[in-house]
């Protein structure tokens, strides 16, 4: 199979950089800057350019992982990075206000990638008792991409095993679509 280019999108603090660090087989390239406004997310740094990592799935199957900055003043990087991507991971934190609205917003911004390749949604920071959150996020995703179901995973972006499960399901989805689209 060819190389896969997978884009990690979603709001500030969702766990995009963390996920790429957890997944990558190479040392990640990162562009973190001091977070000078803690109102957005209470963490030390924020991505201002891109994250880059790689996974080897076999001798000649490589997955390239790109993370975008979550803050919309960097949306020029959203345009640049989505050009080559064939798969989309939208991450959102369950503890953010109105995570379903954020999913709608960020999935809409990257919908062309989801349409030509595949998409999964990962919900981080999930705590017990958040019972209707999954439904709300499924509905938000359906409003943007009504033509197919979008899988939603609850996971911890720090956990390589959980991230790998999400990623492999996305890659399998993309490969199946490519295989089915080939005229026989």
């Amino acid at each position: 199979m060819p190389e896969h280019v997978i884009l990690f999108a979603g709001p500030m603090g969702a766990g995009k950089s963390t996920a790429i660090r957890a997944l990558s087989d190479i040392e990640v390239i990162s562009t973190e800057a001091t977070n000078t406004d803690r109102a957005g997310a209470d963490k030390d740094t924020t991505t201002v350019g891109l994250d880059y990592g790689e996974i080897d799935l076999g001798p000649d199957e490589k997955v390239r992982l790109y993370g975008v900055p979550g803050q919309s003043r960097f949306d020029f990087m959203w345009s640049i990075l989505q050009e080559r991507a064939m798969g989309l991971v939208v991450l959102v934190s369950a503890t953010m206000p109105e995570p379903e609205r954020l999913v709608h917003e960020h999935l809409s911004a990257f919908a062309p990638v989801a349409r030509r390749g595949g998409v999964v949604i990962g919900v981080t920071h999930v705590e017990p008792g958040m019972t209707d959150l999954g439904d709300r996020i499924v509905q938000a995703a359906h409003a943007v991409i009504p033509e197919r179901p979008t899988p939603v995973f609850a996971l911890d972006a720090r956990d390589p095993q959980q991230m790998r499960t999400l990623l492999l399901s996305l890659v399998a989805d993309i490969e199946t679509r490519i295989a089915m689209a080939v005229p026989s």
Partner: protein
Amino acid sequence: MNGLAPLHRDPRVVEAADAALAQLAERCPTLRIAMIATDDGFEVTRVESALGAPDDDRLASMASTLIALGDATIRALALGGTSHVAIAGTRGSVLVRRVGDHPLTLVAVFAPATDVDGKAARMVAAGLAAALAPEAEPALRRA
């Protein structure tokens, strides 16, 4: 950044940044716009010259991206720390310079750049870093 105002609205930072940019404008006749921005792409303050500023509301965030990408390259090649990034266009140039250890950058657009501009920007950035240094608390340091 002491839990009250974010860095880009800290009055002490804005005041020192305004003073630094006024000095730069005075020394650089081909300056179109200069800005102090935070490392994470918020505008602190700007000065626009009579030459007219380019129309882009993403200058602060683009400067932040540019220096971070430059920094990633410098780090990968083990070349130390990044002091500035310069991009030359056919009709002008952009300079992004770090402000000492503060999470701030000086961004300047020249049309075109002259020999004195790079030096002036270096001196003004050093002056601003020093002006902010005495009272700088740890939170003001680059992460």
